[in-house]
């Protein structure tokens, strides 16, 4: 994959299988999500056979949000994951007392944020439009940072990881859920057929446009494998990075701790 460390005019980065100037990736990704915002949740169900719900439940259980914590749900889109965090934190608060947890849904895409609030309400969450590479939070201000199916759309991934490390407190937790590499060759070949042949067609039928889904499957294929990504997280400063594979490695959760 193309690493982008500076933003000179000639530098390019991957946009699916295409190479585009670094400065253009963010707006191209935004176009993709503008087109799919209203159908986002149903398309996730179809593409993953409903499994994305289990993966998100697993992240929420592992994170185990506590009363009084500040949790950043980056690339939180329609708030799917944040609503799970809220439920767990509220239940713990009901049993044990304490302050409510603050769960902040952040996404670079305004359409996704507005679609989430309109379709399912604010849900006691805080919502804002934010770029993962320049977070509007102070150093050491958050207890947890989660990014679910979002990191591969970020232009400068190392920069976003360093920002996550910066805003997390000592002892803070980091979780990333993302498409990864199947560990089995047969599964990989089946998965390639499903993603390259079927998903863009289904996207075309449900959301009315194949193009955004073509981008999604290409960006998944370009994303680094489990161990390469683990190294990137460590390079940003995180400690004790762990990997949990789901569905044979089609999706992986990376978890890490902040020790400052």
């Amino acid at each position, binding site marked *: 994959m193309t690493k982008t460390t500076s933003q000179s005019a000639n530098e390019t980065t991957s946009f699916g299988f295409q190479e585009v100037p670094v400065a253009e990736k963010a707006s191209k990704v935004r176009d993709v999500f503008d087109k799919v915002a209203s159908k986002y949740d149903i398309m996730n169900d179809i593409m993953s056979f409903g499994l994305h719900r289990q993966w998100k439940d697993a992240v929420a259980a592992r994170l185990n949000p506590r009363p009084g914590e500040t949790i950043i749900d980056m690339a939180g889109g329609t708030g799917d994951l944040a609503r799970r965090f809220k439920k767990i934190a509220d239940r713990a608060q009901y049993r044990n007392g304490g302050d409510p947890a603050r769960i*902040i849904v952040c996404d670079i895409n305004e359409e996704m944020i507005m679609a989430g609030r309109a379709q399912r309400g604010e849900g006691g969450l805080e919502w804002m439009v934010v770029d993962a590479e320049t977070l*509007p*939070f102070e150093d050491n201000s958050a207890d947890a940072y989660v990014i679910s199916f979002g990191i591969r759309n970020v232009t400068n991934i190392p920069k976003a990881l360093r920002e996550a490390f910066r805003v997390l407190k000592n002892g803070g937790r980091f979780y990333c859920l993302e498409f990864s590499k199947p560990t089995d060759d047969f599964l990989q070949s089946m998965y390639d057929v499903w993603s390259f042949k079927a998903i863009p067609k289904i996207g075309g039928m449900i959301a009315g446009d194949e193009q955004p889904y073509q981008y999604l499957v290409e960006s998944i294929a370009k994303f680094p494998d489990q161990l390469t990504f683990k190294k990137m997280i460590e390079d940003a400063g995180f400690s004790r990075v762990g990997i949990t594979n789901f569905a044979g490695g089609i999706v992986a959760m990376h978890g890490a701790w902040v020790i400052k």
Partner: protein
Amino acid sequence: MSEIDPKLLEVLVCPLNRTRLIYNKERQELISKSARLAYPIRDGVPIMLENEARELEADEKY
């Protein structure tokens, strides 16, 4: 039009230089004096992106 949650303002800083922001209720903007930018708040949602922010006029009061 929903109001911004006052608690949200406590955690926010300017994404460019991480200084405190001033809330302009009438214009629904968050102002970064040091970056000379006003970040819009739309329907109670702060839009913390540089390319969506308005540059402050030279003599602008806030």
